[in-house]
């Protein structure tokens, strides 16, 4: 069972080398980070230059690689394999300072006016600020185009959907205000012609809006790019997980996220049943059988791999290598 599954996951990568943005989505704690790390490891061993990065403020790449990489940019783990955890707080601080500097420069001020300073600080305290900052940082990462593969260690489902909906709402919203801004520009020009001024000042705000729009389109464009993105759902053979995943898959489909398939994690090896095992484990196995049947019936061919429950936590390169073997074969 594991063997054929293994091959289909590998086949996706071999048949679609153009899919350079790899994402694992699913409920929290099902193994997204593990799969991200193992996939990155396998691709790097195949000779590709890979960056695995976390968009989760509570990132755990540091834990899985057993190295503190938080806020340190892309850190080389092994040759070709780079990992990055974005420090959202740091990024927000730098961004605030950039805005302050811009205000001081533009108006030749010594100090940012109190009302404005309050606003800058209040804005940074908004909960959405962290998400937006990471969202924006991801754009910096992917536009650099330094790597063959970008592996997103995604946030749990709810947040990922929030990103997607944020992108489409932002997009429409910015279209509207860009149109308003352009109309304002026309009135300025009318007045300028009447007053026989040669030309109006270029609208810096309009330029800024177009920049924001471009950034947002870039990141949401990748999430929904059928050519270059592979999105995998992680599920485990448990009732709640299956139900939630199906629901989420429907929502993702509505945002046009190209779903490449499902990976079933934490499958207790069935061969155990032939051994002397306690009733407790036998019941678990029995229950799992039912859920696996549900998964087969409902997801069928879309399941690319069944990954066995490991005997210990997956941290450190040794265990990551083992996991990569389970996912992709040698």
């Amino acid at each position, binding site marked *: 069972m594991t063997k054929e599954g293994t091959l289909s996951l590998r086949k996706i990568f071999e048949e679609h080398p153009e899919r350079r943005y790899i994402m694992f989505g699913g409920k929290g704690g099902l193994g997204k980070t593990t799969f991200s790390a193992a996939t990155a490891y396998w691709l790097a061993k195949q000779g590709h230059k890979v960056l695995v990065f976390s968009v989760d403020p509570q990132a755990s790449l540091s834990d899985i690689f057993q190295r503190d990489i938080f806020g340190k940019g892309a850190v080389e783990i092994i040759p070709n394999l780079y990992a990055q955890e974005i420090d959202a707080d740091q990024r927000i601080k730098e961004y605030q300072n950039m805005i302050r500097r811009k205000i001081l420069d533009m108006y030749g001020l010594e100090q940012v006016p109190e009302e404005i300073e309050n606003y800058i600080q209040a804005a940074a305290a*908004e909960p959405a600020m962290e998400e937006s900052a990471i969202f924006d940082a991801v754009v910096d990462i992917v536009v650099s185009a330094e790597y063959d593969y970008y592996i997103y260690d995604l946030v749990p489902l709810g947040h990922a959907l929030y990103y997607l909906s944020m992108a489409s709402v932002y997009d429409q919203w910015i279209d509207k205000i860009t149109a*308003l801004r352009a109309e304002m520009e026309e009135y*300025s020009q009318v007045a300028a012609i009447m007053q026989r001024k040669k030309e109006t000042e270029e609208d810096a705000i309009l330029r800024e809006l177009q920049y924001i729009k471009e950034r947002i389109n870039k990141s949401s464009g990748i999430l929904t790019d059928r050519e270059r993105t592979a999105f995998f759902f992680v599920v485990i053979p448990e009732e709640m997980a299956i139900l939630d995943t199906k629901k989420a898959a429907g929502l993702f489909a509505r945002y046009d996220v190209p779903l490449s398939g499902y990976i079933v994690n934490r499958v207790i090896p069935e061969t155990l049943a032939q051994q002397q095992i306690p009733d407790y484990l036998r019941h678990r196995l029995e229950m799992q059988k039912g859920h696996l049947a549900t998964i087969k019936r409902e997801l069928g061919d879309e399941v690319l791999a069944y990954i066995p429950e490991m005997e210990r936590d997956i941290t450190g390169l040794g265990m990551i290598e083992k996991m990569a073997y389970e996912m992709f074969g040698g």
Partner: protein
Amino acid sequence: MTEEEQKKPGFLETAKSILYGMAGHDMSRYALKTRGSMEHLFILITMGDLLGIPILPPYYSLRILPYVVPQISTWKRRMLRERDLTDALA
């Protein structure tokens, strides 16, 4: 303008100014006034949370902030003041 020019503007210049005063001035005043209202509308929808109306994701509204610093105080006054009859005459 230098004093020399102020003393004896050319006939054509004078004619242009008169024509502008008769026809163009009102139109350009109207255009600028419309633009002014739109400017405030624009700031409201981008910077609304200054008034307690969260509209734009704050991360991106900060990018716009430097450009609207001079308008912030007049805009707040305009948005928050009570309306009365004299507004119609303005």
